[in-house]
């Protein structure tokens, strides 16, 4: 009887033992595979946290004659590691005229002074998305009518409620923005929306007329580019805020950006803003370490348990070994038979474990998804009563979806380690038995 047949017959005859071994190996392989897929999922989660902490850098090209040209912006966006989220900004002053070229009236009440040449002028703010401008996010500005400016072109403006009233303007009307120094350089724009301020300006009496809230106009970037640089058909900007995926890479990305051609980076100021990340960095690393330690502990102990189990199993077969040896079967082929048995069962276990761990990973993945329910949070009311309001849809930060899935490499890794371990521990456990003579083995039996 050759050893393949013996190995096969043993496994069939001792169904209970074979099944126990199969169950054992299956459980171990599933555990390892699940651990590995969880580990890679936590890496994604961690990258999401880093991204959500919104590290970014600002390019201040105010002093450049032509600002940051359009194609440089797209080159910057191509730099590896940027999240694709960015804000471009420009600031200037413009004289305001109606469609016929007559100056519009600005508010001068509360102004420290009305500088010469600025009698009809005010501050012009251009932003990729007017809703994200600090006046709206921090300064308490709110849209009253019309829609915010979200495109780079379109020759639109948003004007203050009081400015609209004072000059009889409404949404859809046309007005002109003119260069303050060169009054002939004007550009027609359409009033796309009207805003108001919900907080008082605290610098009344200190600010010159053009900085007063009433006299501010929001516009698109290309209009501002025309006013600032006289460009037509292309948009140059003064400032850009570029968000990155991993704040740890900010330094590298900023260096890469400064190597791009076409801009005199020496005259620009680049500032990094990653304070939220720096604050959280240490404890975030701690969290990552914990995942790492968990995986390390599981792996090491798994291997230990597997080796012990296989040893225990082989020790139960001392008697059998003695008989084989007494029958004249060589030690090598007995050992090979044992190895074959284990490898056969291990192969089946590893194949099945792919299915079981995929099922488990899937289960974990869907439990993560179901967590994302519409949360409500309380706003604290003036009277001290709380009322629950539906939270506005969370800002889309472009976070990666967490996938708890088994990668091919992990699967291959578990196969390789599993097999090596099975062979090694079986061989090691068999060694003391094989050393003995058949007679001493059989006489030792209980």
């Amino acid at each position, binding site marked *: 009887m050759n050893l393949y047949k013996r190995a096969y017959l043993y496994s069939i005859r001792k169904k209970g033992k074979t099944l126990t071994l199969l169950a054992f190996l299956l459980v171990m392989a599933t555990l390892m595979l699940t651990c590995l897929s969880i580990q890679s999922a936590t890496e994604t989660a961690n990258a999401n946290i880093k991204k959500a*902490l919104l590290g970014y850098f600002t390019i201040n090209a105010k002093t450049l004659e032509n600002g940051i040209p359009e194609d440089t912006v797209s080159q910057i966006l191509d730099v590896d590691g940027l999240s694709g989220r960015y804000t471009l900004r420009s600031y200037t002053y413009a004289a305001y005229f109606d469609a016929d070229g007559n100056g519009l009236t600005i508010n001068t009440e509360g102004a420290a002074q009305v500088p010469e040449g600025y009698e009809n002028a005010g501050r012009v703010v251009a932003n990729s998305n007017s809703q994200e401008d600090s006046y709206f996010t921090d300064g308490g500005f709110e849209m009253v009518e019309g829609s915010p400016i979200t495109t780079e072109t379109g020759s639109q403006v948003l004007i203050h409620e009081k400015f609209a009233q004072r000059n009889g303007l409404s949404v859809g009307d046309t007005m002109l923005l003119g260069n303050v120094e060169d009054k002939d350089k004007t550009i027609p724009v359409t009033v796309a929306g009207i805003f108001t301020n919900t907080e008082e*300006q605290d610098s009344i009496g200190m600010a010159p007329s053009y900085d007063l809230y009433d006299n501010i106009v929001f516009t698109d970037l290309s209009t501002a580019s025309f006013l600032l640089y006289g460009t037509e058909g292309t948009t140059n900007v003064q400032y850009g805020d570029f968000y990155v995926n991993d704040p740890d890479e900010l330094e590298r990305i900023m260096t890469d950006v400064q190597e791009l051609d076409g801009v005199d980076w020496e005259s620009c100021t680049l*500032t990094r803003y990653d304070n939220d990340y720096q604050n959280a960095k240490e404890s975030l690393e701690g969290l990552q370490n914990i995942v790492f*330690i968990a995986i390390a502990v599981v792996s090491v102990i798994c291997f230990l348990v597997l080796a012990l189990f296989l040893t*225990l199993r082989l020790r139960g077969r001392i008697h059998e070994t003695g008989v084989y040896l007494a029958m004249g079967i060589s030690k090598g082929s007995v050992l090979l038979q044992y190895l074959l048995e284990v490898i056969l069962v291990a192969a089946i276990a590893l194949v099945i474990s792919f299915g079981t761990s995929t099922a488990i990973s899937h289960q974990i993945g869907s439990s993560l998804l179901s967590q994302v329910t519409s949360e409500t949070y309380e706003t604290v009311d*003036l009277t001290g009563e709380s009322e629950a309001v539906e939270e506005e849809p969370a800002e889309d930060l472009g*976070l990666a979806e967490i996938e708890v899935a088994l990668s091919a490499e992990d699967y291959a890794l578990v196969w390789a380690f599993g097999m090596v371990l099975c062979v090694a521990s079986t061989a090691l456990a068999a060694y003391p038995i094989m050393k003995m003579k058949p007679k001493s083995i059989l006489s030792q039996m209980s």
Partner: protein
Amino acid sequence: MNNLGIRAILYSARKWKKTLLVFCLLLAITTLVLSGLAIADAQEEQAEEVRGTTGASFTVERDISTGGWNGNYSTQEFMSEDMIQQIAAVDGIAGYDATLITLPRIFNDKGEELAHENYSFYNYGSYNSQYHELFLSGRFELVEGTHITDDMTGSIIISRELAEWNGLKVGDTLTGVYYPQNNTPEVDMEIVGIFDVVADKDDQVNMYDDASYYAYSSYVFCSMDAAEGLIKGWGEDGEGISEAYYYVTDAAQLENVIREVQSISSINWNNYKITANDEVYQNISSALSDTGTLITTLIIVITAVSMVLIILILSMSIRSRKRETGILLAVGIAKPAVILQYVLETLLIAVVAFPLAYLSSKQVAGTLGTLFGKAAENVIVTPEHFMLVAIVGGILLVAAVLVSSISTIRLKPKQILAQME
């Protein structure tokens, strides 16, 4: 030999190699579960720490809409020092600050006015300047000395530029005056710290509020008593603390803390309003709870797998003793006594393995962590973990032995012995 206790001991001693193997297995698995529990706890703690770093806060400010208006300014009552401290004492608050803005002129100890870029200074009276927005956001960074804290009096921190232009250093004394023509007093302040300006003041993202007309180098922060001193004797009407900021230790608890603050009955909440700011936390909270769920799942999987492993191992070890069982039954030992002997043997091993696992798991996480250069101070195995594992593990062991003996015990001794190879 009727005493099953003796039989159990004798068996374990005679089959010491096998006993040792089962012991090692039990030890390893128990260590795994204990480490797992400790890791789950550490994860929770760590996640709380991460939430703590998001700077979640709430602002208490006087409610202008419910107060009077005298044409130029609101006549709503200001925040009192008592009130600010009372709120700060609520559990879960990590730190707080409030500002009282004054625009003093500042002189050195020789009576010369300090050289700077504006007519006066923009002075934030502060309780704990480390919690001031300008420092929290990273726009300013303290580089020398200490921050202003609420137990300091007559202290001031200044910008590095100002220190350089005027040859000032920590420990020097400055004198500030707000409205000399209104007979406000001169206030002496000692420099306790110097900050660096990190932010780009050239950036025109700026809402032209008061502060924006001052260069960052003209910003100073003084202790609250000094700020109050600067306006003493001058009209109390328009000056006072109108806002205070409170930072919580755990962003997830922000709502609860606010609710507790609102239940302070000595404060007339009709005159003040509270706003919560936890944008950073809101941004990361879902990703953070994902990590938590993943780790918890991992621990659950580990625990479940460990239970299965223990059952498998014990059933295997009992099944290999079929023949012995038959002999024991054949010599007339009662079935319960045989089972009890097996249970006793297993428990004998467990009694040694469990406490040892407690000790080894205390080591294992830390060792593995440091081995790979990752500190693991947070992974701590507590006695509660041990109690849990010992009790559940003990029950599991007994159950496993009982279940695996059933198939053997059901049979007659003759059947068992005949079945043997």
